[in-house]
């Protein structure tokens, strides 16, 4: 299965891409995906001010949802506003 990661704001610069497709065996959770990323990026994504959305719905802080094929996980740093 494949999940899509989306990086907003300065997280995009850090990741080097705006979106990334991550192939998984299945059965993994969010924490597993983060563990597979380069350390500095994973640390930034785990930052206390970074919010997460799974398929367009915001997750509660600390949530570690199971992932399914085609899921989209967005990493949202503090907004700079309109």
């Amino acid at each position, binding site marked *: 299965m494949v999940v899509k990661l989306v990086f907003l704001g300065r997280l995009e610069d850090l990741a080097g891409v705006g979106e990334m497709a991550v192939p998984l065996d299945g059965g993994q959770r969010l924490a597993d995906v983060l563990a597979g990323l380069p350390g500095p990026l994973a640390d930034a994504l785990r930052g206390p001010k970074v919010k997460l959305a799974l398929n367009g719905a915001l997750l509660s802080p600390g949530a570690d949802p199971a992932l399914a094929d085609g899921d989209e996980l967005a990493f949202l740093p503090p907004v700079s506003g*309109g």
Partner: protein
Amino acid sequence: MGADVRLLDAPFVAEAEIGAFARAQGAAGGVVSFLGQVRVDAGAGKAVVEALELRHYPPLTLPGMRALAGEALARWQLTGLMILHRTGEMLPGDPIVLVCAAARHRRDAFAAADFAMDHLKSESWFWKREKVGGQWRWIEPRPEDHADLSRWQGA
């Protein structure tokens, strides 16, 4: 009455939008509009901004703007509400955001436009970067934005 809420990825003509909105507001005595545009000159002691870019996350940004419009409609007696917001790259002088609120009583229109702007500025799903001296840099949230927002809490 539904609100007209749009996310635009190309330049828009603010005066034409205000005119069309105002003409549709036959029942309203007053139309308050706020237009935010990319500044042409720099602030004192600041570098000139050559371009501004707003990124958004489509699954959240427009739904968030629609929820904000719904909140304003529920809170004040309005005859019309419009919220337009640019995304993408903008040049100095380009409109960024336009909020128009129409009401029978102008106090409602002023409050709704002010409320919408405070929330767009601090809570909406936009990430902003500026090009200065040929280099792009991300803009951090401003503490004032959160102070502005607190004006509406518990009111």
